[in-house]
């Protein structure tokens, strides 16, 4: 008994209790997802009983697979479309805002700085309700893709600002000043020095926005018009409790794989961008995991 206790709490050894907790947690967090992915390859209709391997729910089944079921297919298309649009709008908007907020020290900078933090901490349902009400009662914007995009950009932009601003602060002003000293105008310094140095952060932002958009349920659901603007999360939400086929798992799997590939790709590109720039490199993982404000 004593030996067991010594082994468990040896002051120089590894903290075994912590090791155990950590690995149990990791198993707990990942195994269910792995099982759900596994069942997307089930040959039968069950989501709980394994009936052999097939790709039927991806494309094999002529009516119920992700490829052929119009509802699933349109959800996938809408998700990807919104993600692309969200990236295209939020990232330029957020990069500009981050630049403005870090370099501008005027009286207006502070309120904007605070306002920018709000979307990060506002529960989604509050944002969703307010956007819905303002679109319907004041702006006269039709629910649907446009409304969904406006909503998604509103919460994505702040993440871009946080990521880009972090990098901007660690770059400091010295490179810009060196460029000006060497005869570059302010615009040239921005284009030739600052933007290339921000590239890793811009890339990380693109990926974060992609994931945020793909993952979003509440705002996107509140601002959707009809079946044609349903996204994958909406599809999962509305059919997960009913009698449904592993096609739903297949749909979710497609999104998971797309996101993880995008993140892995971003990570590789990030490393290439920052080759030789050790400080930026060390923060690669953390920037990718950029929810750490």
């Amino acid at each position, binding site marked *: 008994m004593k030996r067991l206790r010594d082994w468990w709490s040896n*002051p120089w050894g590894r903290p075994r209790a*912590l*090791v155990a*907790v*950590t690995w149990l*947690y990791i198993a707990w*967090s990942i195994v*269910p*997802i792995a*099982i*759900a992915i596994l*069942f997307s390859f089930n040959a039968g209709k*069950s989501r*709980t009983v394994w009936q052999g391997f097939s790709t039927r729910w991806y494309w094999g089944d002529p009516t119920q697979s992700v490829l052929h079921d119009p509802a699933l297919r349109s959800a996938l298309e809408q998700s990807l479309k919104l993600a692309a649009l969200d990236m295209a709008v939020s990232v330029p*908007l*957020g990069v*500009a*805002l981050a*630049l*403005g907020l870090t*370099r*501008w020290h005027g009286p*207006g*900078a502070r309120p*904007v700085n*605070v*306002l*920018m*933090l*709000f979307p990060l*901490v*506002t*529960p989604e*349902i*509050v*944002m969703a*309700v*307010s956007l819905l009400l*303002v679109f319907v*009662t*004041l702006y006269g914007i039709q629910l649907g893709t446009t409304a969904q995009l406006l909503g998604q*950009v*509103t919460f994505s*932009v702040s993440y871009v600002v946080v990521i880009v601003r972090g990098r901007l602060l*660690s*770059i400091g002003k010295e490179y810009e000043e060196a460029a000006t000293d060497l005869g570059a105008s302010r615009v040239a310094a921005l284009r030739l020095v600052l933007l290339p140095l921000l590239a890793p952060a811009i890339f990380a932002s693109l990926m974060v926005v992609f994931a945020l958009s*793909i993952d979003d349920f*509440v705002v996107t659901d509140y601002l959707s018009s009809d079946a044609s603007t349903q996204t994958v*999360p909406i599809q*999962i*939400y509305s059919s997960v*409790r009913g009698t449904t086929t592993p096609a739903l*798992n297949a749909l*979710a799997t497609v999104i998971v794989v797309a*996101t*993880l590939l995008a*993140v892995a790709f971003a990570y590789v590109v990030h490393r290439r961008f920052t080759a030789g720039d050790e400080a930026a490199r060390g923060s690669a*993982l953390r920037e990718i995991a950029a929810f*750490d*404000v």
Partner: protein
Amino acid sequence: MARRGLFWPLFALPGAVWLVLFFLIPFYAVLSVAFGTVDPIFQGPVPVWNPFDWHFTTMRSVLEQLRPGQVFWTVFVRTFAYVGIALAGCLAIGYPVAYYLARHARRTKALLLVLLIIPFWVSYLMRMLAWIGLLLPDGLVNRSLVDIGLLSHPHGWLDGQPSSVIFALVYGYVPYLILPLFATLDRIEPHLIEAGLDLGASRFSTFLHVTLPLSKQGILAGSVLIALPMFGDYYTNDVISGSPGTSMIGNQINLFFQGGPQRTTGAALVIVLAVLLGALMSYYLYSTVRASRQPVTA
């Protein structure tokens, strides 16, 4: 000289305008609806934009129902209980994991970080979907428990069980807590820990008197970061329980917005929720602003 002064503000302008148009004004729209009237014929909400003409009837009745024993009271108490327990659960799981990763993991650190980040990137509803598959009456959980004899017959995990909802909240939100905690713990200088040990504190008391106080900021920020969205969450509850018996504030609001005439009440409830969370938020904002003022090392 004017150009010099306008250069950077111009960069901030589009984003600032966006936030005003799509964050600030919409929030005002909620106020206008909550303090507005209801169309007598179509039963739709009629916003009142001028604060001097606001009607307080809806808000008054919502506040009345918030008194102990009334409908919303039950829902609010339940929400606080669920969020509180789930938060404690998240900390109980998240802190040791983040602590191990930051302080002790060496060769496996990169691998562990990747494994911890994966759930973070898997769509939230996909993760719920995964557990629902396992918790179905004929799912893996029930079958295993029956097989090893812990259960005589399948348990209805998804039939409105508060424990299932809390479990799902913990599972859903703990990844968002681990990363900020890890970031805080990772920043603590190892020298400080070594100094603690050197000064005669045991491993545990070093943890208690050095590491824990130094990570307080991270614990608070991380807790606020996950508590806020939990307060507005309705989808976890909907997919895991679906029963009014476990309904939280988010479910109540969602209910009012799905079905026609009650949007005014829903908007009033949103205001109540926002005010409640305002206190929590201001603390969070205060701490981030303070943290961002600390010198940045390149």
